[in-house]
């Protein structure tokens, strides 16, 4: 098994490690990241991303995780020995969100484990403080 972590979710999927590459089936790709290939286009529930011309991604039902991340313009941290990978968010997506000035929403727990969501405070002025014990 291989662990793919994305958006705080870790999925255990079948994968074949070939040198430095991690190869997933279409089912494993869908389970881990929610993307499927339709006629040269990668789609999830909300959007589609066309593959570059000549891309062989998905040929023979095999998806190289590195190529998927590159096609989606997502940073990928990969450790084939630890059998785990983290798919991050692109600089472009972050720049677009921050450029809109609409405060990105999040849900995080307090000390008691109770979840709090930023957008539930809409209608108030908010001071959002980031701190740490270190």
């Amino acid at each position, binding site marked *: 098994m291989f*662990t793919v*972590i994305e958006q*705080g979710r*870790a999925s255990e999927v079948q994968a074949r490690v070939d040198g430095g590459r991690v190869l997933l089936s279409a089912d494993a790709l869908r389970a881990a990241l929610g993307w499927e290939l339709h006629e040269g286009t990668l789609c999830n529930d909300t959007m589609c991303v066309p593959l570059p011309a000549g891309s062989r991604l998905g040929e023979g039902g095999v998806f190289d995780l590195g190529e998927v991340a590159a096609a989606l313009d997502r*940073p*990928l*941290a*990969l*450790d084939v*020995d*630890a059998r*785990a*990978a*983290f*798919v*991050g*968010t*692109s*600089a472009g997506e*972050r*720049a677009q*969100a*921050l*450029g809109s*000035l*609409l*405060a*990105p929403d*999040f849900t*995080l*727990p*307090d*000390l008691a*484990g109770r979840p*709090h969501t*930023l*957008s539930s*405070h*809409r*209608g*108030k*002025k*908010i*001071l*959002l*403080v*980031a*701190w*740490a*014990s*270190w």
Partner: protein
Amino acid sequence: MWQALYEELRERHFVVIAVALDKSAEDARPWIEKAAPTYPALIDTQHVVADLYNVVNVPTALWIDERGRIVRPNDVVFGSDTFKHITNLESARPLAALRAWVRGDTAGFAPAEARALQTLPTALDQQARAEFGLAEWLARHGRRDAAEPHFVSAGELAPHDFTIRRGSMPIRGLDPMGPPFREMLQTWVGGGRPYYRPLPDTRG
């Protein structure tokens, strides 16, 4: 330290949301229990907020208005002068600006200004965050040896990101107040680079 300000201003439809970029709730607990906040004090072990808002050091704060718009991008801010002798940053001016904004005496930054003051992450910054994310996950699952090279790589990709370089120290068994941190800080500041980067206070 934000509790007094929250109590002072809460009737004006104001809330503080504090997010601890700590390796566990237990690391943050003593500070939170001492502050006894009645505003949300949240735990962010996976640095979700650092990623969403491009936070690269603490303590920072940003202002969000009633419509959910950022009217002051994240900026180093201290709620008191406890560390002024080290940081040379005082709390009075930013707090006065915050009070004036909450009371409606001044507006936040206009959109064009807010955008201009917002630092955007580069592709390397986001690659660093992915490396940190993988390392944090491995460490959390008891695989500290496997995590270590990814923590190191994250710090090399984004050497200005102290939520990664210093924030990972407790996870890696390094003292974030001790020699590893002091050495890192000395090298950084010695190269003429600031550890804290306050916004130009154009609305002081």
